């Protein structure tokens, strides 16, 4: 296994000082903004709501530079985050992804944003890294397999990109697609899945302030095994919703069929929120193992982000594991 040399692992002191450079989300006057809790339909009003939700998110989350999440649990080490990965495009062996993805070219890289939008565009990864303030977001990541990590992502809210391309009033969902390059990603030569990887969000989920496009972690650019150069992070959903190495983002008027829905429709659904009370058909989701800990801890509804996202699902029946 290709280990990251210890010289490249950021020490805590070093990391703290570096993190002072990462800008904090500068959203002021948050609390009162989310008044009423009623649903908006039009995009413009949704934007107002999103800004408010973002502000709430920023308040509830730990400060940039924190070494713990808002519940006081410590970040996972860079070494663990970089060497324990589910990335089937390379291999199904979680400890083998780092080695097989080393040298995966992530520059030049372009992301095509289009579909039902007024301003479609092709974005260069360098532009995406600098166009908006890069925020640090310390999120829990809960894998559907029953393990979890705390990861200090760096990125920008997805709604900022969506606001710029302006979804039309017909757009209801966002469809994401990973690069399809079997010569670079050996796992894509296996016949078990319909490559490329596809994921999706409802537009209101995508507009939620918690949803980010990440380009880095621990203050550094993403490594290939973590989804370089740009990936989705939606911490209230199971990890597989966080599509990696994105090349296409399309606004659509249908619910996209994701790779996992196509591969095992009886096991994986579209919404796929973290729900401890709804077991996977083969195993319980009530508990998880935090990487670095020996025992198990209880899994929280919406992975602990109920305050920020539960309102998105009011009135929906999510009792099916493959909802």
């Amino acid at each position: 296994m290709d280990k990251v040399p210890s010289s490249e692992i950021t020490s805590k002191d070093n990391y703290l000082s570096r993190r002072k450079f990462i800008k904090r989300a500068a959203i002021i006057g948050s609390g009162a903004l989310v008044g009423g809790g009623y649903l908006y339909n039009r995009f413009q009003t949704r934007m107002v709501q999103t800004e408010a939700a973002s502000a709430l998110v920023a308040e509830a989350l730990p400060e940039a530079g924190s070494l713990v999440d808002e519940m006081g649990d410590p970040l996972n080490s860079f070494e663990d985050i970089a060497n324990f990965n589910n990335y089937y495009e390379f291999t199904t062996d979680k400890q083998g992804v780092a080695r097989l993805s080393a040298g995966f070219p992530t520059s030049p890289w372009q992301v095509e944003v289009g579909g039902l939008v007024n301003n479609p565009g092709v974005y260069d990864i360098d532009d995406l890294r600098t166009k908006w303030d890069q925020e640090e977001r310390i999120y829990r990541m809960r894998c559907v397999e029953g393990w979890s990590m705390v990861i200090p992502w760096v990125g920008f809210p997805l709604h900022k990109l969506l606001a710029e391309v302006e979804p039309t009033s017909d757009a209801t969902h966002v469809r994401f697609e990973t690069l399809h390059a079997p010569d670079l990603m050996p796992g894509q030569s296996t016949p078990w899945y319909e490559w490329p990887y596809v994921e999706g969000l409802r537009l209101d989920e995508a507009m939620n302030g918690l949803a980010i496009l990440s380009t880095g972690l621990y203050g550094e650019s993403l490594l290939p095994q973590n989804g370089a150069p740009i990936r989705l992070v939606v911490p209230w959903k199971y990890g597989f919703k966080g599509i990696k190495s994105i090349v296409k983002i399309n606004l659509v008027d249908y619910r996209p069929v994701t790779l996992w829905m196509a591969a095992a429709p009886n096991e994986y659904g579209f919404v796929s929120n973290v729900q401890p009370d709804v077991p996977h058909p083969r195993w319980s989701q009530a508990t998880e193992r935090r990487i670095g800990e020996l025992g198990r801890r209880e899994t929280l509804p919406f992975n602990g982000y109920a305050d920020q996202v539960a309102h998105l699902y009011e009135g929906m029946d999510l009792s099916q594991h493959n909802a």
Partner: protein
Amino acid sequence: MYATMRAWLGKNIRWIAHVSALAPLVLLGFDALTDTLGANPIQEITLRTGKTALLLLISSLACTPFNTVFGFPPIIKVRRELGLYAFLYVCVHFLIFALIDYGLDTDLVYEAIFEKPYALVGFTALVLLLPLAVTSTKAWQKRLRKKWKSLHKLAYVVTGLAVVHYVWLVKSDYREPLAWGALVVVLLILRLSPVKRSILMVRSRIRTRRAQTVRSSLATSVVKSQN
């Protein structure tokens, strides 16, 4: 050459079985001490002990059919050892799950075992393996007589359950667990008496033909040397 190797293997098969069955455990201990089990060591230990247990169960089941096909009686001597080592790995597998993974939290363990078929199948295999381990001694074999044989046919049920347990763990590339399952089915087929009989017949025919060839070549060389 072949005969010498065969004889050597027959003489040394016991310790070879002991060493190969213990090697994964030693390697696991070594990796644990040198901290090379990765980010999720509990999962790694669980996976490795489970896989080793399955392989040992299959090896134990393979002894009799192996002897049928290749005519190598010494292998029967290690059948019991392989089965007992499988039981050892199953125990480690289960204890890691119950003691370390779930911290002996009875509610959690109960939920994990009895509310999900995936774990229930594995647990059933463990429970069925218990009487086999207990009655594995010569004394029990004598005491149970004919019943012993029928009881130990449970080993096939146990291995089948272990394969199902493995299939249910995998997310969608089922090739490996299904390959083990297919092997178990083949081993089972080799035990069916009509199959067994015809294999033995083919083997005896081959033996006769080989003997004839040897005899005729001997005869030719005798004739040649006389000329």
